[in-house]
């Protein structure tokens, strides 16, 4: 529960009544009078409880990031430094835009001017970030949808403060009323509108902030506390393992493209003999390039693992390949030969 830091006097008996930062109904301990305590300028505050447990963040990160890096390397070399649930404040504002829209029309045939007044009354629902903490503006949260989905809103007075759950208070400089006025500013003199704010609620949305160290760099991730989506974060990429096949394939691609240019130029400039001399290396380089592309794809395929979490351990299972296709069976001896050759010459590459 939150701390009651202030005291006020009961208007019935004058005895002190503790109160906190939120509007509430409290009871005087001396005369048992229920007291409605309204904090001046205070909007009702609610928080949304996170569905995702802090311990689940490892699983979320690994499952989302496995497409970006070699899974085994990530598990070996990464370490979570901190993770905490930040409850980010949003103003959820509902209200009405009322007014008159004066429409002037001129009759084409009689040139008679007519004025028609339309009474405007439309409702609006807006949400805006109520804090200016750095990095928060990058979070894309559709609060209107969350509320219309019926996510339970718990009064902020019931928030359980602890080391891992932090409630960020709204910034006093952000005024929801001026935000709404700015939204509806049309600069049209014929529209006289009146903005009536019906309800302005502060909703604390759970964001799990994970700080991760992978190899020598530190990465920050913001995870949606409701559905586990990664809202913000740069995926670490391990290029060490991919470098060799990529470099080799790039070399042969350039050779192949160079061969084509050479072939075309020779065919234009010289006779048939020169064409046949050129066609053999070009064909060989073409075949080798195709094989190297398939080889690179194979290496990616081999290293792509499914990650399984068993208790506290994280295991990497190789993809379960159901059956070898005819193409795979045909290419398998060539791949094996290439893999062996690559292993043999690994020391040379280093």
């Amino acid at each position, binding site marked *: 529960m939150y701390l009651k830091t202030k005291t*006020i*006097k*009961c*208007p*019935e008996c004058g005895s002190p*009544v503790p109160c906190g930062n939120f*509007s*509430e*109904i409290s009871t005087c301990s001396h005369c048992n*009078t*229920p*007291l*409605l*305590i*309204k*904090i*001046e300028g205070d909007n*009702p505050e609610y928080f949304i409880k996170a569905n995702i447990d802090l311990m689940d963040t490892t699983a979320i990160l690994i499952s989302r990031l496995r497409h970006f890096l070699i899974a085994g390397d990530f598990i070996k070399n990464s370490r979570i430094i901190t993770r905490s649930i930040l409850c980010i404040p949003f103003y*959820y504002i*509902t*209200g*009405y835009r*009322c*007014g*008159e829209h*004066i429409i002037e029309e001129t009759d084409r045939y009689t040139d008679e001017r007519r*004025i*028609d*007044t*339309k*009474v405007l*009354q439309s*409702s609006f629902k807006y949400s805006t970030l109520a804090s200016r903490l750095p990095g928060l503006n990058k979070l894309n949260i559709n609060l209107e949808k969350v*509320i*219309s989905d*019926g*996510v*339970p*809103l718990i*009064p902020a007075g019931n928030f359980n403060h602890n080391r891992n759950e932090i409630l960020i208070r709204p910034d006093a400089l952000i005024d929801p009323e001026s935000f709404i006025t700015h939204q509806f500013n049309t600069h049209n003199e014929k529209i006289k509108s*009146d903005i*009536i*704010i*019906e*309800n302005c*609620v502060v909703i604390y949305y759970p964001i799990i902030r994970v700080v991760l160290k992978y190899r020598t760099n530190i990465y920050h991730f913001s995870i949606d506390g409701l559905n586990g989506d990664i809202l913000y974060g740069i995926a670490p990429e391990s290029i060490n393992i991919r470098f060799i096949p990529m470099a080799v394939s790039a070399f042969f691609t350039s050779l192949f493209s160079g061969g084509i240019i050479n072939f075309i130029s020779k065919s234009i400039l010289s006779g048939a003999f020169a064409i046949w001399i050129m066609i053999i290396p070009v064909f060989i380089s073409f075949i080798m390039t195709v094989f190297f592309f398939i080889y690179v794809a194979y290496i990616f395929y081999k290293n792509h693992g499914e990650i399984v979490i068993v208790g506290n351990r994280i295991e990497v299972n190789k993809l379960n390949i159901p059956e070898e296709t005819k193409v795979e069976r045909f290419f398998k001896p060539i791949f094996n030969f290439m893999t062996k050759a690559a292993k043999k010459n690994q020391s040379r590459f280093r």
Partner: protein
Amino acid sequence: MIIPLRCKNCKDILTGDIGDYLFFCRECSISYLLNGDRLSPVNTFESDSVEGYTHLLPLYLYDITVDYTVFASKRQEEVAQLIGRELKMVVRGFTTIDPVYFGDLELATADSINQNKLQLRPYTIRDKNFRLNVRPDVAERLLRYNFMRYFDRRADITGLKYNLTTNAMGILFLKATLKEKTIYLSDLKKELPSYAILSI
């Protein structure tokens, strides 16, 4: 701001929630409206229909007097005579229904009351089965626009000048039944889709 929630008549504890603007005494059946920083007694009404209901939808009910000063057209004069100088207007008192559906609801209710299709009688609140969470000052501001829309439905309001005075204000409870896919408003014989309900 600190307000003791005790009945001014019998000193019993008032029933109500934080975020609500209507409190009531179970002992002497007086309802209180929280307007600004004070609780003032308010009359509550319901329709005299005998149909059953599961939910009560609170609306602000205003008795207004309209003094028409300038008419811009003959039609406006006719409409002013038709609706009269003294009439009742209704403004939403709850936000649990999507505002998109409110416009028609308010005008239909006001129409039914002014045409005596809906007879009202005093209502004694027994249970807390409603939520009046629109501030009285917001309702007061919406009243003017509701009257404009009420008039504009019958004749163009361009050039009409009038003064609007509020004589009395009360709370009207519309009866509603929540079914699987619809909200049935028995007083108005209307149905709303269930997705019109909001959590705030």
